[in-house]
């Protein structure tokens, strides 16, 4: 299970995650809105369970995408070893 999660995380790209977040959120919103037009038992239960689950999944994907993006930006802005400034000459003798 952990291996599968790691492979999924390795394969997940930031654009794919944000698109998935958008799609999940849209599905959740449709389910929740449908229950307002047809307030019978199954639509209401589905809205409060499956609809909310899609919403949480969407937010999870979004947070993961932001975290990956921040890490990527951090890695890009980190100083490289070959571009490091030369050490100062010591004045003490």
């Amino acid at each position, binding site marked *: 299970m952990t291996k599968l999660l790691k492979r999924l995380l390795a394969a997940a790209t930031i654009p794919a995650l944000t698109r998935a977040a958008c799609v999940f*959120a*849209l599905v959740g919103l449709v389910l929740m*809105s449908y229950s307002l037009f047809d307030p019978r*038992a199954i639509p209401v239960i589905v809205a*409060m369970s499956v609809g909310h689950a899609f919403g949480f999944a*969407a937010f999870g994907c979004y947070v993961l*995408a932001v975290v990956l993006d921040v890490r990527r930006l951090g890695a890009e802005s980190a100083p490289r070893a070959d571009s490091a400034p030369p050490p100062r000459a010591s004045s003490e003798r």
Partner: protein
Amino acid sequence: MPHSWLAIVSLVAAAAAAAILLRFLVRRPALDLPNKLWLFIGIGALPTLSAVTSTVSGMEATTQREFCGSCHVMTGHFEDSENPLSQSLAARHSRNPFFGERACYVCHADYGMYGYPVTKAGGMRHVYLYYFGGYRQMSRAQAEREIHLVKQYNNLNCRQCHTTRAADWRRIPDHESMRREIDSNQVSCASAGCHGFAHPFSKFAQAALPSAPAHPKSE
């Protein structure tokens, strides 16, 4: 059409979130800070508002008489409560504006400390029995014969409104003489010898059975 202001807030929030999300899906802009914030609004803030308001609105919808009558096994109960000529306890209470559209819920809710979740869990049990317990396959007549309350109706629910301490109540000799039995639910307010059944047509259907079922289904 949804008519409560909560439902309208929910729909407006959902529509605004959907507009943001669709724009992002179609245009696919870079994930810079402004777009991250727009996405946060579209995926986090607005859907949360929509979820909260639709949940409250949905919970409110489950207390409506029409919701209870949306399962066909409850059609008889629903029609009786709607009937302006019916003199059953259910119909008379449904005509009372204090109960009105929420008559089923007001009379059948649990008024204990954890009453709300207990009532909702009971409702979930009804849904389970409807879809997986055979109620869905029952005819209306069969349902009226075979579906019973899972436990005796609690007089405490009647006493939420009809106090047993007022002089008007106490001046009835039967009330005073049976106070202990009424308090302990040994005698139901809604029984044949007292104020009559709440849903008498179902009792007639049950009485018409040649013999009571060995294991009556319970609602």
